[in-house]
């Protein structure tokens, strides 16, 4: 197991290095630079812009800039955010908790809701409930996440006004709320983005879970459990579901990068102050070091997510340990 983890960690370092390098190069190939300006900026005199370019080393050859970037990165320095006028790491660090909260909530939706629906469908396979849930999950699965977010926002935010439509907190009241009130405020703000981000994953999980459950339910040990007189709940929860979770764990490893990708769109629609929105804004503004920093960090998170999924898989399924 130790050798396995060590090998995967080495792979992880190579992947992160590659992601950082590619992001750095692609950004430099794009037209414009951080000092060119944005549509909401005042026009800055060219003399001032040129002076800033020199001060930030943006006039140096790209290889020299890359060398300096790597040297800084090795020291844990992500570089400077030209848009926020502070270290890029600080800009990213401020957004990480929000993105992790959203991704975690979306994971709960993806797997909690998805597994529950898959189990219900498998227990009522072929019934009208199964057909309806299959249709619903297929519909949601085919829906673009961006569009789903806008629809939820229009229905629950603008029309019904049940839930807040933007941000992670209510800036008007949040600081004056007691601890539980703040938790409630955060929860209300989390519902729509988490549902949007997690719903499509939940639809996929449900389909996987249904198939896996149907496969397991037909096996001999389930028949034996039933023959021994175990209650249906015990058969399903303790024997069938546990075995049917293995393929879904593989899905867990795949879900994390998809969720991180999805946060970019969902954070934009719901103005969620996370890394996704920061990255989009940074790409538009060519804020080089925020984009590369966010990409490196996302790569680290994806690699860790996959590593955890692999380890979990080996813990739960002895056959993979033996094969290794």
């Amino acid at each position, binding site marked *: 197991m130790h050798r396995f983890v060590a090998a995967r960690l080495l792979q992880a370092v190579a992947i992160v290095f590659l992601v950082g390098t590619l992001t750095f190069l692609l950004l430099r190939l*794009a*037209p*414009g*630079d951080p000092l*060119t*300006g*944005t*549509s*909401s*900026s*005042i*026009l800055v*005199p*060219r*003399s*001032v812009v040129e002076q800033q370019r020199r*001060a930030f080393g943006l006039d140096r050859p790209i290889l020299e800039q890359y060398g300096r970037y790597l040297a800084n990165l090795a020291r844990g320095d992500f570089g400077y955010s030209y848009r*926020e*006028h*502070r270290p890029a790491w600080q*800009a990213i660090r*401020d*957004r990480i908790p*929000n993105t992790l909260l959203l991704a975690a909530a979306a994971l709960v939706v993806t797997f909690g809701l998805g597994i529950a629906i898959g189990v219900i469908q498998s227990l009522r396979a072929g019934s009208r409930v199964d057909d309806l849930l299959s249709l619903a999950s297929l519909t949601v699965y085919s829906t673009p996440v961006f569009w789903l977010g*806008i629809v939820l*926002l*229009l229905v629950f*935010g*603008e029309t019904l*006004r049940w839930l*807040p*439509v*933007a*941000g*992670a*907190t209510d*800036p*008007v*009241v949040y*600081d*004056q*709320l*007691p601890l*539980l*009130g703040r*938790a*409630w*405020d955060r*929860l209300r703000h989390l519902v729509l983005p988490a549902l949007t981000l997690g719903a499509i994953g939940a639809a996929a999980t449900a389909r996987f879970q249904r198939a896996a459950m149907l496969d397991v339910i037909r096996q001999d040990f389930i028949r034996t459990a039933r023959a021994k007189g175990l209650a249906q709940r015990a058969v399903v929860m303790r024997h069938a579901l546990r075995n049917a979770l293995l393929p879904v764990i593989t899905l867990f490893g795949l879900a994390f990068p998809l969720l991180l990708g999805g946060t970019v769109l969902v*954070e*934009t*629609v*719901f*103005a969620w*102050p996370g890394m996704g*929105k*920061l990255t*989009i*804004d940074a790409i*538009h503004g060519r804020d080089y070091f925020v984009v590369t920093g966010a990409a490196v960090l996302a790569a680290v998170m994806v690699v860790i997510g996959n590593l955890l999924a692999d380890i979990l898989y080996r813990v739960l399924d002895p056959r993979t340990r033996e094969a290794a």
Partner: protein
Amino acid sequence: MLRILTTLLAGLVVAACVSDQGESCPDGWCGTAVIATPAEADVLFPPSAQGDIARSIIDLVFTKLAALGPDLNTVDTSGFEPRLASSWIREDSLTLVFSLNPDARWHDGVPVTADDVVFTYEVYRDSLVGSPARPRVLQIAGVNARGPHTVAFHFPRPYLEQLFDAVYHMWILPKHVLDTVPRAELVAHPFGRNPVGAGPYRFVQWRAGESVELVADTASFLPRPGLRRVIWRTTGGDMSAAITQLLSGSVDVLNYLPPEAVQRAETSDDVRAIAYEPSTFYSYLLFNLRDPNDPARPHPLFADRELRRALTAGVDRAAAVRAVDGPDGIVADGPVSPALWIYGLDYTRLMYDAARARRELTALGWRDSDGDGVLDRNGQRLSFSIIVPETSVARRRFAQIIQEQLKSLGVEMRITELDFNTFLQRAESGRFDMFYGSYGGDPSPASISEVWTSDAIGGFNFGSYVNPEVDRAVRAALAARDIEAARRRWTDAVSLINADAPAIWISCTVPKAGVHHRFENVSIRGDNLTATLPAWGVPIDRRLPRDRYVN
């Protein structure tokens, strides 16, 4: 497990129900404006702030010596309103002396003195700071303190806009906080995210990516603002989501409504569209006078002045403006926005006349010899491309309408939509035939020299337009010492520019913001969303729960 979750949820609901106990309205004074903005402020250090959002926040946290009046007249000194300076006198044609309000205090309680003003001037003019306002501040020869509350501004030459240059470009900075910071490090200093000013509102907090909160400074020497709290909320770049937030009541103000959203806002019960007036913008189709492939050579089409004039005559700008900006749209008639005091003077204008445009094109030798619908001459087709920022719905629509109008003349205009950064980069490097620009400069005619003179080549004169006569006329206008002479000289300068047709002037865009109905005394000055915000208020009978939260 289910029981624990249910209990927790019930607890949260109860907590939410009791949370409204925090509402209050001391002295009957309250009111909160939540302003939605698509992006976050860049930095709240005034000399370095570039974004509109940062500058609108800065305008409430910091203050200037004096403020421009609502009509943005930069030469009528009676229009200026006292701020940090309670009065000023012209000592001679080269010196203005300001008396500071002795009651003025920074938000940390330290008195504002003449040393702060001198320090501010030094910071703005320091090349290490790199302030965008530096070229304007360099118009001032020097600033010196003549006592704790008296400060003198010296100018190298007499001109009409001395007072404007002295007070408009600089928000006064606290010397006691920033004096020890090396100049090159000022922009990245934590002050830029936690500023101390002397304006009507005090900075409270900045939640990264989410909001910036200000609260009225109860100890301020300035008149008490109508609203107690102002919160900027970042809505993200998705405009439809931002509009939904406005219409659902999540926010009170949306700083910009795109044309298609104005009608939606106006039919809403809760929101109205308020124009930025007078507008500081004009948009134009800029001809590149140099060859985009070889800037050393003239442009194969647009170096010809008569062709530019013919194309200008062939564009029905009034129809295009009606179609895009609606019946209230304003047709631009030169490089002059309605905010400039020279707007509407009797300068030469090239009017729409399609028949004349056709005649002139024919006289220049342009004919459709191969019957493909596009004019040609000596094997060269009258065909070119225009670059347009994809972020601007209005400019894209204008370009499509004008494309059709030119097509009817036998002129082919291809539209290339670019992301904003690429668009500006192409403009700066001269890699375009035609550029759809929108200029929103200071409310001073001096802004004309930033774009349409030879001094501006390598700057904002992206089309490389040069006419020594225009340069001379603009210099003479800037040096005029009385208003009548200035009017005559600006009329000459703008007439010369218009006659050369370096661009086709399109629209004096009047941006609109969406504002909740409950606010009273609402107006928006053309150059700044929040310049008039201290006058806004909420009548008692229209207060919402969020108006009663006081930080």
